[in-house]
């Protein structure tokens, strides 16, 4: 976070990694284990970045969330598809089905941090700094939000990536396409 490693785990498998991270950060949120992989990833990334007391200061209550990825909710969509493929074994899981939209992960973050703010989820082939920059800038300029939690959270077939950043009128970094791309590539 901000260029510093806050947690390391060599586990190649996502389920082990995210569960260990959940415990490491003493997350204490039982609904976490009901989430799909994309939501777990987005939730933990946001949880590390946002204040630890889980109740944002009043000036952060108007924090918009703008996330993006490549695979949408495809990983969970496949699980749902498998459960309805066979007419003789047709038992779709409601708990899986509710995650067959990528923006549900925004809902999980919003519930956790009590946000009732603007939010959007975009699908791009690759990380699109220009679009995120323009969109979050517009939210701030039109006073739709005081701050924007922005970034990329992607999960597909065991491969995953999360990059989140906060945009506001004041901060440690310039908010432009070049800087966003530089931060995204700094890993």
């Amino acid at each position, binding site marked *: 976070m901000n260029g510093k490693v806050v947690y390391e785990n060599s586990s190649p498998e996502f389920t082990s990694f995210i569960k260990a991270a959940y415990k490491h950060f003493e997350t204490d949120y*039982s609904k976490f284990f*009901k989430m799909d992989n994309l939501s777990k990833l987005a939730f933990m990334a946001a949880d590390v970045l946002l204040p630890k007391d889980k109740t944002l200061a009043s000036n952060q209550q108007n924090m918009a969330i703008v996330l993006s990825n490549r695979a949408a909710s495809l990983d969970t969509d496949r699980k749902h598809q498998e459960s309805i493929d066979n007419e003789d074994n047709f*038992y779709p899981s*409601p*708990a899986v089905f509710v995650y067959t939209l990528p923006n549900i992960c925004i809902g999980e973050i919003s519930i956790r941090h009590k946000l009732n703010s603007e939010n959007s989820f975009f699908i791009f082939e690759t990380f699109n700094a220009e679009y995120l920059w323009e969109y979050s800038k517009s939210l701030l300029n039109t006073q739709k939000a005081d701050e924007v939690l922005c970034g990329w959270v992607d999960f597909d077939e065991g491969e995953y990536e999360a990059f989140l950043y906060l945009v506001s009128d004041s901060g440690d970094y310039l908010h432009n396409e070049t800087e966003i791309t530089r931060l995204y590539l700094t890993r």
Partner: protein
Amino acid sequence: MSELRKELKEKIIEQLNLEDIAIDEIQDADPLFGEGLGLDSIDALELIVMLDKDYGIKLADPKEGKKIFESVETMATYIAANRSR
């Protein structure tokens, strides 16, 4: 019947992803919803699917679930009386 109650507790923990709860922490008469295990509406739907998939019981009226899913005890009693698997 006690075997069925144990089986139900295992299934509830596994299928509803109750990571933080062990079998012996669920008492037979504990409320499953609200102040008990704190299950939610999606969990209720999962339990309806579980009745169908594992015990061959189709609930014609989802409202029936309120009584059936009060506790592991009520679930076990209903399943024992109505199961086809």
